[in-house]
């Protein structure tokens, strides 16, 4: 029996780990039933006096992640996959608003990095109102499909990486459920430009308004990859079905590799990873991951994470 056989046996015999497929070294295993595990709110940068009015408008309100029992008005506590609590990202009920949770590490090597998670996405339930609320976007409530699904905009998993003398770049995968007009698109996308930064604002190069898409503000700077994919919203806003996501990147080549979401594996090697032209300081070996959720309606959007596992081959 080889070392890898023993490792595989140990992983498969562990009910907490056997639902993942980690690379050889596990950097983080975050079951949110026991806390937030370092996933925290993202905030833009501020001046030397702690003056938060110097934070970029589009990066000042990403909302604190919550430990959620997935409580709902109709059934009470839904609970998570691995216990009672999940990490919940919740937007404001403001079109374009984004909630972001970030986890901050550094790299002790280069090579493959893999993020796995079990996630669910929901819109907040609407209570009351008239019969017109049975319609939204492309949906007319028919006992199966529900307008709530069309009120969900997009969620994103991404990195912020820097090294080798301040060369900074992001890898990004976004599931766009609806476009900004609330029509279903159900596709995976990535930006073709790097994310605007506080330094670019400081230098007068960019100024974005509140609720701008901070990852890449211009919709034309996004490019679809893979084929459209329908996920399991499960009819109404209060049923939570957990989806598996596995995302592999290569920090040696500074490229995406592949994205698996449930039974679909998408080759991402040709998805652009545009670096910043200018070098960044104080970020050597930066290894950040973030999840975000963005509403395209005036309804709160939620991204629930049961657990996250980050592993590497170095």
């Amino acid at each position, binding site marked *: 029996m080889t070392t890898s056989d023993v490792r595989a046996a140990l992983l498969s015999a562990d009910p907490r780990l056997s639902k993942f497929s980690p690379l050889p070294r596990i950097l983080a295993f975050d079951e949110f039933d026991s806390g937030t595990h370092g996933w925290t709110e993202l905030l833009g940068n501020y001046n030397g006096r702690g003056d938060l*009015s110097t934070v970029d408008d589009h990066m000042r309100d990403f909302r*604190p992640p919550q*430990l959620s029992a997935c*409580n709902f008005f109709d059934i009470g506590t839904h609970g998570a996959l691995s216990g*009672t609590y999940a990490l919940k990202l919740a937007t404001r009920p403001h079109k374009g608003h984004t909630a972001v949770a970030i986890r901050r590490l550094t790299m002790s090597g280069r090579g493959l990095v893999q993020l796995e998670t079990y996630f669910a996405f929901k819109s907040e339930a609407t209570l009351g109102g008239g019969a017109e609320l049975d319609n939204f976007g492309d949906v007319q409530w028919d006992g199966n499909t529900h307008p709530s699904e069309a009120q969900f905009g997009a969620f994103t998993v991404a990195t912020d990486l820097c090294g080798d003398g301040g060369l900074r770049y992001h890898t990004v995968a976004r599931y766009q459920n609806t476009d900004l007009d609330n029509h279903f698109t159900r596709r995976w996308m990535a930006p073709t430009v790097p994310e605007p930064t506080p330094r670019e604002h400081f230098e007068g190069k960019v100024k974005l308004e509140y609720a701008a898409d901070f990852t890449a503000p211009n919709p034309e700077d996004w490019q679809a990859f893979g084929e459209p994919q329908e996920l399991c919203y499960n009819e109404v806003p209060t049923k939570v079905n957990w989806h598996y996501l596995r995302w592999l990147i290569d920090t040696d080549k500074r490229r995406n590799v592949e994205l698996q979401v449930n039974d679909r594996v998408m080759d991402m090697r040709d998805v652009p990873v545009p670096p910043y032209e200018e070098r960044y300081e104080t970020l050597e070996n930066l290894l950040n991951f973030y999840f975000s959720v963005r509403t395209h309606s005036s309804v709160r959007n939620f991204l629930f994470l049961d657990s996250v596992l980050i592993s590497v081959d170095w």
Partner: protein
Amino acid sequence: MTAVLERDTTFDTRFATEPYEVAWAGEARWFVQHIGGDGTATYVTQVSPDGITWCDLDALEHVVEPGKLVSWPVTGFGHWLRLRAKVEGSVQVRIHLAVKA
């Protein structure tokens, strides 16, 4: 855990904070700081069965004046907390919610 539910936001009319889930917590405490503006606001803790429909937790009103930091504990809450506020004048508000198991 500490959540910053409003971060230097300016209000000149009544408002409520975003819903925050505290099902896991046994203790909670609000910290409300007026860091700008010349107005005064009155805060009341609210609870909810679902994060959508809200009622006052108690009859206690907490008045915060310009430049002041006011704090109060919260007990006997359910799975959600928020604040509602009545504002006189203009207030710039920073609101922390500290929660413990």
